C-alpha cells in the first residue's frame, strides 16, 4: 500500500540501537500517558474534550524523527502524542489537561492546545483544518528569516499533522495551494485513521482509496506510507523531509494508521466492528518495533519490561507533579490577553515550562 523509493527501505534499520530504543520508549510513553489520561478523564480530573492518540504513536514518533529538532511542527487537537514525541515533559502536558498553572499553557489551553515554544511546537489546534494555513506561515517565516533577514539559503522545513477529516476543509486546500504557489517548505502529514469522528473516510471524501490525489491537483509531491510501523514512517518521511528542505517545496504524506480509541472520550464507536479494531490492534506499532529489536538487536523481554516500567514511573511522577501544581491564580484570567498591559489587562508572563527550560 505504500509507494516509496526502494533505496530508502532500510534507512531505519541502519540506525543505531539507542535511536530505535528511544523510539520504542517514546511510543511506550505516549501509550502509558494516554491510558492514564483516559483514567483521569473518567475520574473527572480532566475537563472538556479529550482526544486519545493510542494506536497512532508510530506516526508522530517516526515523522518527527525525520526532522531537525528546530523545524517547526503544528498539529490538530489529538496532540498529546506529538507534544511528547517532540520532547515535552509529560508533567507539563498532564498539568495542562488538569488545568494547573504548571501546564504548558498555564492551564489556559487544555487538551486540544499543547504549545511548546522551546521544542518548536506551534500547538495543537481545535478547529479542524485551521492549522493548515498556519503551517504554511511557519514555513514562510522560516524561509523568510533565512532568505530576507539572514540573507542565506532557506534551511527549514515545517511539518503539519492533520486528520483525514481535515481534507474536506477549505483551509486545507487554500493552504496547499498557497504552499504550492509560494514555494513553501511545508509537509502536510495526513494521519488517516479511517474516521473523521464517526464518519469513515470513504463516506466523507472523494478518492478515499488514494488520498494522494488531493495533492496532485496542487502539483505537490505526495506519498502514502504505513503509519502502523514507526520504521516505515521514518523510511518514507526522511527522504521527503530532505527533499523539501533542499528544494524549498511542499509535500503531502498520507500515513495510514488506526485510532484504537474513540474520536473523543465520549465516543461509543458503534460505527465500526470489534473485528476491525482487533485486526489493527494485532499489528500494534509498539509490538512491531519491540519484535524487531528482539529479533535483530539483542533486545530481551527484560529490556522491554524495564522500559515499560520506566515510562510507568515517569507518567506516575508526572501525575504526582500535576497533583502538586496548583490551579492558576484568578489573576491569570487577565494575563496573556494582550502582549502589553493596557486597560484592565495585565500583560504576559512565561509558563513555568519555559522558565524551567531557561534555567536548564
Amino acid at each position, binding site marked *: 500500500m505504500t509507494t516509496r523509493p526502494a533505496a530508502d527501505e532500510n534507512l531505519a534499520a541502519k540506525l543505531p540501537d539507542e535511536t530505535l530504543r528511544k523510539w520504542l520508549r517514546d511510543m511506550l510513553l505516549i501509550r502509558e500517558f494516554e491510558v492514564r489520561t483516559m483514567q483521569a478523564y473518567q475520574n473527572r480530573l480532566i475537563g472538556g474534550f479529550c482526544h486519545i492518540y493510542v494506536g497512532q504513536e508510530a506516526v508522530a514518533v517516526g515523522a518527527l524523527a525525520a526532522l531537525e529538532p528546530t523545524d517547526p511542527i503544528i498539529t490538530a487537537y489529538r496532540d498529546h502524542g506529538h507534544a511528547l514525541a517532540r520532547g515535552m515533559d509529560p508533567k507539563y502536558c498532564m498539568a495542562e489537561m488538569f488545568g494547573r498553572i504548571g501546564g504548558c499553557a498555564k492551564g489556559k489551553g487544555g487538551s486540544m492546545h499543547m504549545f511548546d515554544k522551546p521544542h518548536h511546537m506551534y500547538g495543537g489546534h481545535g478547529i479542524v483544518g485551521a492549522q493548515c494555513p498556519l503551517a504554511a506561515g511557519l514555513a514562510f517565516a522560516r524561509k523568510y528569516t533565512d532568505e530576507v533577514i539572514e540573507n542565506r539559503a532557506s534551511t527549514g522545513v515545517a511539518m503539519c499533522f492533520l486528520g483525514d477529516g481535515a481534507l474536506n476543509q477549505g483551509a486545507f486546500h487554500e493552504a496547499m495551494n498557497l504552499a504550492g504557489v509560494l514555494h513553501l517548505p511545508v509537509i502536510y502529514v495526513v494521519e488517516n485513521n479511517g474516521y473523521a469522528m464517526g464518519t469513515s473516510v470513504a463516506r466523507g471524501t472523494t478518492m478515499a482509496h488514494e488520498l494522494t490525489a488531493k495533492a496532485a491537483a496542487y502539483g505537490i509531491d505526495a506519498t502514502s506510507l504505513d503509519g502502523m510501523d514507526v520504521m516505515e514512517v521514518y523510511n518514507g518521511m526522511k527522504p521527503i523531509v530532505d527533499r523539501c528542505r533542499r528544494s524549498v517545496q511542499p509535500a503531502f504524506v498520507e500515513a495510514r494508521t488506526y485510532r484504537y480509541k474513540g474520536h473523543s472520550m465520549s465516543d461509543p464507536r458503534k460505527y465500526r466492528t470489534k473485528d476491525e479494531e482487533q485486526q489493527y490492534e494485532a499489528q500494534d506499532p509498539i509490538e512491531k518495533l519491540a519484535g524487531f529489536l528482539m529479533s535483530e538487536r539483542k533486545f530481551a523481554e527484560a529490556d522491554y519490561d524495564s522500559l515499560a516500567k520506566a515510562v510507568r514511573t515517569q507518567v506516575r511522577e508526572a501525575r504526582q507533579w500535576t497533583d502538586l501544581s496548583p490551579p492558576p491564580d484568578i489573576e491569570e484570567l487577565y494575563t496573556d490577553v*494582550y502582549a502589553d498591559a493596557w486597560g484592565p489587562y495585565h500583560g504576559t508572563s512565561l509558563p513555568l515550562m519555559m522558565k524551567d527550560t531557561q534555567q536548564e
Partner: protein
Amino acid sequence: MSRQIEYRDALREAMSEEMRRDPRVFLMGEEVAQYNGAYKVSRGMLEEFGPQRVVDTPISETGFTGLAVGAAMMGLRPIIEFMSWSFSLVAADQILNNAPKMLYMSGGQFGCPIVFRGNNGAGGQLGSTHSWCVESLYANVPGLKMAIPFDPYDAKGLLKTAVRDDNPVFFLESERLLSVKGEVPEEEYLVPFQQALIRRPGADCTIVSFGRPLYFCLEAAQALAEDGIECEVIDGRTIRPLDIETIVESVRKTNYCVVVDQSWPFASVGAEIASQVHERCFDDLDNHVARVHADDVPPPYAYNLEQEMLPNARKICEAVRSVTYNA
C-alpha cells in the same frame, strides 16, 4: 515641514517606513505587488522591497490570513491587506479564532503581531455583501486591537503604531477617504492608541465617532453652530483600546452625548460607548445618550436607499437637537 498628501499615500509611507526600519515586516494580500494594489495603496512597493516582502496572493483569505498567523507566531510582523473588510468574513476563523486568542491559548508563548488592514464601510453602491462595517462585529473579541484613521495624518501615524504593536491590530480604512488630502509632516511621528482627539470643541453637546462618519459629524456640527448649538466632536481613533476618559470628560462638560457609528445598532460599538457613558456620567447627563447608526437592514444598492441607510449629517443634526431638547 509638512505637506499635503493623500490618505492612500500616507498609508503607503507608513508601511514603507516600517519595512525599511524592520526587516521582519512584510506586506501580503491580493494584488498588492504587481498590480500596485487594488486601490493603489501599495504602488511602487514591489520595486523597492521585492517579491519576498511584497507578496501577491491568490484570492484565498483563509489561506493567507492563516499564513500570517503562523508567520507571526514565528516572530515575523505581517501586514495583511484585505481588498475589503467584507472579504475578511471568509477568514473569520483565522482572524477571530486564531490571531486574537493564540497568546492566551498558549499561555503567553506565541503572540500574533499582525496588522490586518483594508477598506471598511460602504464604498458606494456596492450592495449588501461588499459594504460591511465590521467594527461592531469584530470589536467584540478580546485580544485584538482596532484603529480607524480619519485623515492622512492619522492614517500614517496610527498605522506605524499598529505595525509596532505586538498584538493583532484590525486597521479599518475607508475607500471613500483614500483620495482625501491632508497635512502630513515630513518628519517621522507616531499616533498612539487609546488617545482620542477633539476634532471640534464645543460646550453644548458631545458627538463621538470614528473614521469616515466623522466628516458627517463635522458637517452637522457646523450646521448646528449656526443655530447656536456648539457640538464637541470627538474622534475616538481606536475602538480597542477605547479612550473613554476623553469622552467622559467632554460629556461631564456638555451633559449631552450622541454616538455616531456606521455599523448596525444592535450590540454595536455605539451601544457599548453609550453604555459606558451612562455608567460613568449618569449624574452629568441631561438626557439619555443618543445613537446614530446605519439602519438595521442589509446595505441596499439603490443610491437613494443607500444614502438613507447610512449615518449622515441630517440624522446627526436630528439626534443632537432631540437629545438637547431642541427638536
